[in-house]
């Protein structure tokens, strides 16, 4: 075994941080090592005045007018570093996006990490950098954090648990209940990129052009909402993909959803991975896409707003809602060959099949 070396200096967003070579149990012990990890790595990387106070709780300024919106999330992705992102970036974006989906402007996040004893410093460095970059793009502050370390074998390198707080401006009220028959459904970009990236990694598929779509969407959603379009509700299709979100919306919004297969944008690499393994892109997670239900009269306007935003370049209208009729499936798809089929919810994990 080699001697442990002192933490090394690394640049993050223009600031210098210190990254330990390896995670030790002591890093979670609350003593000197913990303090150094926080003060030399997390605080400078995620820099903001609230985090720097390092007190038990972040006492924040008064909220802007409107209704607070909160979310919590846990992140356990394997592998923690993948093409297009890492657990750090994923955890910040996932939380920001959850808050943004409700129409709220995300303000403050908490970021708690559970590290495994022996985890490589590079892993922590990558995740912290990813989180810092995502926080910067989203324009939010990570105001509180925590670090625990579990013994070797009891964790998967790094887990993250977050909470996010934002404010829904007065006059804004989104929800599935607002959906009306004939509303348009839009997606902000090609689907399944994140899920396909993870699958490709797991099953030894080499796809250089494929990467996770992990990204914060709050600026895009804000632009859409500011346009004055009659947006009913927004959802991000993460775990379970587009099909899962559509089923949830159909149920909560008491509506039938009709998707148009030929209108749904799918990258060729995602299609390739799905064809090889026997999966459906509609069931794969996206980590940087939003589904928007909007009055049909405003569909083109929202499309235009999204197209002129870097996070919505490939947005498309992918379907519409109609009156739910008892005895008919909640979600159907007009197939690309001109047929219609019910779009079923997944039962359990989608596994690669040969039949």
């Amino acid at each position: 075994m080699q001697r442990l070396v002192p933490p090394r200096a690394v640049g993050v967003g223009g600031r210098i941080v210190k990254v330990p070579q390896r995670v030790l149990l002591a890093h979670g012990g609350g003593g000197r090592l913990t303090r150094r990890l926080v003060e030399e790595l997390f605080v400078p990387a995620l820099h903001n005045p609230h985090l720097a106070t390092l007190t038990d709780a972040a006492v924040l300024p008064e909220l802007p007018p409107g209704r607070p919106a909160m979310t919590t999330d846990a992140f356990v992705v394997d592998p923690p570093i993948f093409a297009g992102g890492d657990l750090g970036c994923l955890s910040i974006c996932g939380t920001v996006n959850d808050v943004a989906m409700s129409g709220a402007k995300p303000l403050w996040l908490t970021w708690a990490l559970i590290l495994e004893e022996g985890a490589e410093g590079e892993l922590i460095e990558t995740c912290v950098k990813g989180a810092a970059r995502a926080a910067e793009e989203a324009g939010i502050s990570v105001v509180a954090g925590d670090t625990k370390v579990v013994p070797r074998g009891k964790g998967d390198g790094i887990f993250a648990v977050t909470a996010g707080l934002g404010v829904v401006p007065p006059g804004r009220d989104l929800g599935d209940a607002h959906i009306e028959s004939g509303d348009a459904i839009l997606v902000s970009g090609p689907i399944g990129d994140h899920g396909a990236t993870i699958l490709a990694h797991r099953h030894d598929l080499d796809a250089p052009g494929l990467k996770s779509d992990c990204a914060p969407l709050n600026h895009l959603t804000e632009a859409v909402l500011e346009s004055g379009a009659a947006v009913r509700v927004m959802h991000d299709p993460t775990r379970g993909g587009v099909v899962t979100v559509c089923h949830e919306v159909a149920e909560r919004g008491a509506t039938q959803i009709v998707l148009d297969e030929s209108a749904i944008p799918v990258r060729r690499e995602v299609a390739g991975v799905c064809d090889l393994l026997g999966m459906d892109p509609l069931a794969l997670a996206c980590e940087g896409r939003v589904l928007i239900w909007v009055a049909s009269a405003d569909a083109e306007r929202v499309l235009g707003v999204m197209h002129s935003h870097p996070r919505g370049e490939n947005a498309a209208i992918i379907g519409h809602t109609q009156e739910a009729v008892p005895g008919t499936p909640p979600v159907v798809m007009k197939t690309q060959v001109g047929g219609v089929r019910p779009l079923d919810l997944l039962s359990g994990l989608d596994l690669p099949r040969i039949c």
Partner: protein
Amino acid sequence: MKTAPFADPKAMAGILTELQNEAKTLDRRVTLMEVCGTHTHSVARAGLRRMMPEMVRLISGPGCPVCVTPVDYLDRALALAALPNITVCTFGDLMRVPSSTLSLEQARAEGATVEVVYSPLDALAMARDDSEKKVIFLAVGFETTVPTIAGALDEAEREAIPNFMLLPGNKTMPQVMRVLVDDPDLDVDGFLLPGHVSVITGWKLFEFLEAFKVAGVVAGFMPTDVAQGVLALVRLAKEGRTEIGNVYGRVVTADGNQHARDLVDRYFEPSDEIWRGFGMVPGSGLGLRSEWAHRDASKIEVEVPPPAEPVGCRCGDVLRGVIDPPECPLFDSGCDPDTPVGACMVSSEGTCSAWYRHERWASEAGS
């Protein structure tokens, strides 16, 4: 070789228009059976069943290898997975099939070492990487898949990797098809023949159907492939011709892949195999030849519970095409894709699962 043209809506409309024209002058309803789970899946995915003319009825047969795998096979796989130092590797298709007790997925949660692989070669790689672990691959699937298993076995032999074994469970199609055409309860005019099985076997293998006065057309799996297959079958039925056609010429030939069959023949020999719903179908299985007994996991002594078919389950009748899924008392009343009782409900192209997902609705849409 883009696949998009094989899913072109205009081409599809063209074929279906032809099909409608042909169907207009049918004097009776024509029943066509597909015997390949992937065909069941293709039909469902494209929404094809609803696009068929009234006089053309498309039914599913025992083409889902998961569905026809007897409970006893799963019980044995589970018993092996519970042994120390054993890793059971399987295609994803088998993970959620219920045995007499648990599914492999449930067993994994209970601590059994079960890994899902895309290829038998991935299972071999696990054996190669860890000589302490005995890797047992669950060998299920039809003629398309057997060569991939034989290929992995051959590599294990050539590289002298001792810790790689199979639990044989592969099946072949012709014998069970004979049983089907012999069945007085079943009235099938033609078979949509499995495209990828035929890649290996060649379409001439199915010429035996002619003696039973049943037509067969080998078709691929893209929407236009299936539609072309159905069209060809309807034309044959109208003319009273019972020959074997092939609309998948881009990969299917008369004689198939001899290299593949030779290697399969080196390791496997026909065996008598139980098919769920059919009982014993002589010569329809593939067992390991005796010289490869050291690769045969069925020779490992394990305690297997007496097989217990779930009470009320009518998978057998569904697989023989005798009843439609809703006629099973458990369908959608205790048995559904989330909590499957029988194998027909587990696999995404099992007849009951396909029906549950696609057919149980009165219509697709309100308007």
